[in-house]
């Protein structure tokens, strides 16, 4: 525009030069002098303009951008050369060439809250949720939500199958970036950049409605395929599914936009049924606790019975394919009550064998002596035994037996339990 103004000035001056050559008087001389000077100035201006015009063809492309050059409105170049990489480039100045810069490297986050229940500004700021009555409905135009499918039931059929859907609230974040600058420029609507606007913000704001619509469509489409529990547990599968749907649609319309990631930032049961859902969660926790307790009990019981190898041994006992050797290995590692029983048996075995051996050896050892002096040896053995018995005995009474008409009668009052015995409170009665 500036150029044109200068051009007009030039046009006005040119015809003034010709009459100056015909009349040369003093006034004319000074006029021609003035004209000459202004002409020189004009020439300098023209040269500066030409240089400025050519220099205006230098364009820089930022490090996060790629650029396209439009020559007479059409993208210049073939193949790879169509896209200019970051750096300094020279193109023909306007109106021949025009540069279009597209910020491709920058990733943009777009939060989607349209599937969340209505919250007032205050609630959002304070982060508190207002409790709702269980019978308060969701207003379709104000509260956002998605519909999820019901749990698969075998007996469900016909019309009933569609009627056990659930409602779920969710918040998402879409991250995208421009992937194909050419497709993006040709197909995606960008508002004109007005003075004072930041180019990048204009792009972001312009694509937002498109992305929002496509994304919401994908969320609605994907979530009807999942149950509410799947949606709440934030499985990776759902964001992936949605990412795929969004990308498919963006590719189909040749938007040149790539979805970098889809995140489920938040998901929740409707507040109206929260209590029931929480009760169900508590029930699961209770179940888990009970099962853990039972498992601990089981582990303890088995441990007490047979030690750490209990489970293995039990399986081995019921498995024909386990070799005897392996079973013996397990038996040898036994602990607990079972081990005690076996240990007792071993002790008994040793004892019984040793005693038998000792008795036999004893017999054999005294036999020669016995054969020579049976009476004496017998007496000795007998008295040894009596001595031992009397040693062991707690109380001993030696009684004088006398002949009487009624024979001999001895009455002894004894305390059966020696530990409870007070003094020697025994009574000895002797008749006659």
């Amino acid at each position, binding site marked *: 525009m500036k150029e044109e103004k200068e051009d007009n000035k030039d046009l006005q001056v040119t015809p003034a030069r010709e009459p100056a050559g015909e009349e040369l008087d003093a006034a004319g001389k000074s006029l021609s002098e003035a004209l000459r000077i202004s002409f020189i100035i004009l020439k300098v201006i023209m040269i500066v303009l030409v240089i400025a015009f050519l220099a205006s063809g230098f364009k820089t492309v930022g490090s996060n951008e790629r650029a396209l050059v439009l020559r007479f409105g059409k993208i210049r170049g073939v193949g790879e050369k169509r896209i200019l990489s970051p750096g300094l480039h020279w193109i023909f100045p306007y109106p021949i060439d025009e540069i279009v810069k597209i910020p491709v490297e920058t990733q943009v986050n777009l939060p989607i809250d349209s599937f969340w229940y209505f919250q007032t500004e205050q609630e959002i700021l304070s982060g508190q949720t207002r409790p709702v009555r269980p*019978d308060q409905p*969701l207003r379709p135009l104000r509260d956002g939500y998605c519909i999820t499918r019901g749990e698969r039931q075998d007996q469900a059929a016909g019309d009933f199958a569609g009627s056990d859907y659930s409602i779920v609230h969710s918040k998402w974040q879409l991250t995208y970036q421009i992937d194909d600058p050419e497709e993006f420029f040709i197909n995606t609507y960008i508002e004109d950049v007005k003075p004072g606007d930041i180019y990048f913000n204009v792009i972001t704001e312009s694509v937002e409605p498109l992305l929002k619509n496509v994304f919401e*469509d994908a969320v609605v489409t994907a979530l009807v395929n999942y149950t509410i529990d799947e949606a709440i547990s934030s499985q990776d599968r759902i964001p992936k599914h949605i990412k795929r749907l969004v990308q498919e649609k963006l590719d189909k319309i040749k938007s040149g936009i790539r979805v970098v990631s889809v995140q489920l930032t938040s998901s929740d049961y409707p507040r109206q049924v929260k209590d029931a859902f929480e009760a169900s969660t508590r029930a699961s926790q209770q179940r888990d606790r009970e099962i853990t307790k039972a498992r601990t009990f089981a582990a303890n019981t088995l441990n007490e019975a047979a030690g750490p190898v209990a489970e293995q041994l039990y399986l081995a006992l019921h498995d024909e394919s386990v070799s005897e050797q392996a079973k013996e290995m397990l038996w040898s590692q036994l602990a607990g009550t079972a*081990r005690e029983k076996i240990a007792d*048996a071993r002790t008994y*075995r040793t004892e019984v064998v040793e005693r038998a051996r000792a008795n036999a050896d004893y017999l*054999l050892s005294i*036999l020669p002596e016995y054969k020579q002096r049976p009476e004496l040896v017998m007496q000795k053995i007998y008295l040894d035994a009596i001595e031992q018995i009397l040693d062991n005995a707690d109380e001993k009474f*030696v009684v004088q037996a006398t002949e009487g008409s009624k024979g001999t009668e001895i009455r002894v009052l*004894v305390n059966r339990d020696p530990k409870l015995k007070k003094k020697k409170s025994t009574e000895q009665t002797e008749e006659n």
Partner: protein
Amino acid sequence: MKNIAIAIFVALIIITLGLYLISFQVRETESCLVTTFGKATVEDQITAPGWYFKWPFPIQQVHRFDSRMRTYEVESEETTTAGGDPIIVSTYVVWKINKPLEFFNATKTVRRAQSEILHSRIRNTQNNVIGRHYFSEFVNSDPSKIAFESIQNEMLETLRQDIADAKVGIEITALGIKQLKVSEEVSKEVFERMRAERNRRAEVITSQGKGESIKIETDAKSKADELITAAEARATAIRGKGDAEAAKHYKKLEADPELAMLLRDLEALIKSMGEGTTIVIPTDMRPFNLLKGLPELKPAEPNEP
């Protein structure tokens, strides 16, 4: 020299200005329509970008149309499925101007195209197509019966056909349902059902937990019992072996069975008269007879010389 340079410069400027009058550029993002005294034919549409000539202003005029994709959404609206269930949907379309002449004749501006052409057609399509499907095709506990995507495709095809028939120069590139909701009344019922369903499930879970834990405990008990029984069996076997081994030594006792029996009896006697026994013994019995007095003793003669 000077004059020639200036002349060339001036000429260039005049040519440039002249070209502005008789030519125009079509950008990649546009399509144009050239009207001659206000009239245009199909040949006057320019959709390929580049540099074109025309007659200057009063004769020919260039109308530019942005041919990039735009989105247009219809606000949420209640409609009815084939089964009579009310359902609230919101549909959006991605559209662009593909035939400048038709578009020029039909509406001229984007705003009017959206409010006059697209709005009612999208609503019609939405109501018609949804009216042909049952609610169970939108959401179903059996995922294989969900036809949500194909319903959207059907809407797209129907709308495309409709727009193409109307010859308004618009192409629909994509269509989707971006909100799928139920009415206020129905949402109450849904909550009711969700709550009942959860409560039922909580009960199932609780009883499952009880059953499971009892099973685990009984299993463990029976396993433990079995192991102990097995161990007892082994123990009995070991005892048996011990008895058998001990029996081998009994052979040696055959050297003098009577003595062996006596020794055995004595041992049993000692064992049975353990600690805590009270014994009453007559003085006749040795060695207590010594309490009564000293027996007569004669030094023994040597038995054998």
